């Protein structure tokens, strides 16, 4: 698998139209799969209707309607991220994919984060939000951050690490 690739997005096969995800209390929840993205390491990430709705609602409550429009670029964030790190507070089940994207004139580039949980062998969308430029989560204590992937030509210090 090449280090970077065009996003591969597909509709779910019949057998994966819905998946069972484990929520934060360990309860099994059935979610409807909107589409499946092959991420930068060739692993499937399930983007569910519930996950998208949660991200949409979170952004709307913050009046970040411009980022709601950018949810369509989620496959690109997952398949061609700038850097992917384990969440220092939960490295056993959380990866954060970061990518600098162009939003609109005046704001230029903005770092966005796609939060992916992986539980019981299933990677699924958990949230999507903007991130302070040059500072991934935990950058204040950079030695605790484990990098899962960094794009060719990128340096970890660009992201506060």
């Amino acid at each position, binding site marked *: 698998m090449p280090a970077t690739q065009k996003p591969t997005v597909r509709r779910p096969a019949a057998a994966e139209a819905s998946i069972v995800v484990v929520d*934060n*209390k360990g309860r099994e929840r059935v979610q409807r799969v909107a589409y499946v993205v092959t991420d930068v390491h060739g692993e499937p990430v399930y983007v569910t209707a519930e996950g998208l709705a949660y991200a*949409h609602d979170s952004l*709307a*409550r*913050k*009046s*970040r*309607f*411009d*980022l*709601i*429009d950018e949810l369509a670029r989620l496959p690109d964030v997952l398949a061609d991220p700038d850097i992917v790190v384990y*969440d220092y*507070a*939960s490295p056993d089940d*959380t990866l954060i994919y970061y990518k600098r994207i162009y939003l609109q004139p005046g*704001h230029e580039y*903005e*770092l966005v*984060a796609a*939060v992916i949980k992986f539980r019981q062998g299933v990677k699924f969308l*958990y*949230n999507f*939000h*903007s*991130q*302070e*430029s040059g*500072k991934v*989560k*935990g*950058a*204040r204590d950079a030695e605790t951050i484990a990098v899962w992937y960094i794009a060719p030509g990128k340096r970890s210090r660009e992201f506060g690490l």
Partner: protein
Amino acid sequence: MDPTRQRTDTSIHSRGYGDTSILDLMADYRDGEDRPFAWIAYNLHKTYPAVIWGLRLLLAGERFDVPQAGLRDVPLHEAFSWAYAHFILEDELKDKALPSTSTDERPSLTRRVLQHALAGV
């Protein structure tokens, strides 16, 4: 574009989430403002006690409204306790809504939720 979006919606730009000095907790700021308006913790189900402790120690003076919960002028740890009870515990903590009494007479939701959260430790 979101076809259901009303055209009257106007985006308000923000800095993007950045670290706070509290474990797992990030905050976001409107452009040009120095008071955070949004917070996120990916793992509140695990980090709730530490987050609450940090909020009580470091941001005890901050008070906010939580319209979704019907809470007004509450300290941040109370707002986070409501979020934990509502989104994480769901039906495990009955009667999590605060009674509409004056602030001084109000029972501490944080105390109740923290007690519940620590029960399994």
